[in-house]
């Protein structure tokens, strides 16, 4: 028989814009485990390794440290930082002065207080990690701030997008709330005269 030229299945439903909201992703969850430091991860791997090895601990901890340096929020003063992350939970930017950091006088950062590993095995990926910092109300969150947890030690399921990397060295990660200064800068359709037409074709 000749090679089939069409898809085995397609997406048939046009559900409208509500279906593309954030909520629809929420059941897309992966196994995750968090640790205050590398040693506790290694100990857990030795004791009862479910889906990660000691090597995974080392690799993902190093990745989380790097991601922390590159993507954790930076503040212009220690006071501002402590407002967001709690008193005593902030320090100097360890990467200050190095090339590629945010700069601009934003040189205080929340301390790295743990990291979370997530298994993306079912999604064809490997093991991913995220650095954790404190929140103002005494919880623990990813450095990009999109997920917070009561503890930096525990096991559970979290949304897969928790492990998505934020943009490096400046700005906030995708989907975090931002202070919007201006809106409506796209869509004037400058090359066509007159309005009311489709943008596609």
């Amino acid at each position, binding site marked *: 028989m000749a090679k089939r030229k069409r898809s085995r299945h397609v997406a048939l439903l046009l559900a409208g814009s509500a279906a593309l909201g954030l909520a629809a992703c929420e059941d897309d969850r992966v196994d995750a485990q968090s640790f205050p430091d590398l040693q506790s991860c290694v100990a857990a791997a030795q004791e009862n390794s479910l889906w990660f090895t000691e090597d995974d601990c080392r690799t993902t901890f190093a990745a989380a440290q790097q991601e922390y340096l590159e993507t954790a929020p930076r503040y212009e003063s220690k006071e501002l930082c402590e407002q967001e992350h709690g008193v005593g939970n902030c320090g100097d930017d360890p990467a200050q002065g190095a090339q590629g950091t945010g700069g601009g006088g934003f040189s205080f950062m929340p301390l790295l207080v743990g990291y979370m590993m997530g298994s993306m095995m079912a999604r064809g990926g490997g093991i991913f990690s995220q650095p954790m910092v404190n929140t103002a109300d005494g919880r623990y969150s990813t450095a990009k701030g999109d997920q917070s947890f009561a503890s930096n030690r525990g096991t559970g399921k979290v949304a897969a997008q928790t492990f998505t990397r934020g943009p490096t060295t400046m700005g906030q990660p*995708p989907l975090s709330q931002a202070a919007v200064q201006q*809106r409506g800068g*796209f869509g004037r359709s400058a090359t066509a005269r007159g309005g009311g037409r489709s943008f*596609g074709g």
Partner: protein
Amino acid sequence: MRKITLPERPGWRDRAAELGFTFADMGGEPYWDETSAYAFTLDQIERDIEDPATELHDMCREAVALAVADEEWLERLAIPRQHHDLIAQSWTHDEPELYGRMDLSYDGTGPAKLLEYNADTPTSLYESASFQWLWLEEQQQLGVLGPDTDQFNAIHESLVERFGQITDPGTEIHFAADKDNPEDYATVEALAWAAREAGMGAHFTDLSGIGLSDQGQFTDDQDRVIGTLFKLYPWEDMLRDEFAAHLQSSRTRFLEPPWKAVLSNKGMLPLLWQMFPGHPNLLPAFFHADVADALRGGTPAPHVASAFAAAQDALRAGHVTKPLFSREGAGVAIHQDGRIAEETGDDSYSHHPMIVQALAPLPLMDGFHPVLGAWIVGRSCVGLGLREDRARITHNLSRFKPHFIEG
């Protein structure tokens, strides 16, 4: 390639409504029209459409490589000077392309001719990838079409695969379109479903709701930062809008990448003809300014003189003028026998520089002129969608027609 009258599926309009395909009728006329369908042989699909379109995309990439490295070409393509770097960098960084649609003139014999390449914001994706697919499956179940018929339509699966190749697992992708335009919205939703299936997060934002944060990043209409943005909105407009100054500093990843501004520009057609003169799937094409005088019996611009001499018989027999930027047939005119034989009457793009392309008349089948839309995903042609119209220039209300491959 034949046009065949077929019974419509009973109750398909209800099914369309149930699925959210709300624009199956538009302007009081059918848009989705299954009272007939186009039939192709497998040979016609593979030899005349699939392989040539894939090759054309490769040629287009060669043309982009040339244009982005050449200030003069970027000027001719009317790309604002301040954005030359953005476009050139996106190419040198090898930012991957997602999809596009080539419009081809083809009648079942001889080589298909590239009319234009909408490589940036092609619509009719849902109709092509999904509703057309359902039509085939159901017509087979009803016994209207035999079990050995097939369809050139791996669009959805190819999109899923492509998203998996070009974005990291779990990437949050925003899809921006005009929320009040159901056709545009259906295209981004079809893409978003494919992205979700590939393991990405997909979020919709109204295009005009996009904001700029105090840190210079773009945000969606709920103030959430945009990391990766698919925009169903032409690059030529992105580059001229108020937010254009922030495109690079926002560090947003764009789909399609900025270099598509070069490719989805009718000025590509003269560039392709200059690079690949006489290619069987290309039509002679020139910038209007270079040949306008020559078409009236005068002389062409010196740098195209020999190419014009080789093409002048074809051009004089019939040619089409099109603005560099235009969508859905706007500003397109067919010239034959020294006069305008047909035009669309929509001049919203006609203030832009024009190109001239030799006429490859669309065939006439049962009173309608079909045009083939060859879908490119990544770098390969993976599917087909047809539009047809009583007029010779396809436009936004032209009907969508299903096709099948004869078993």
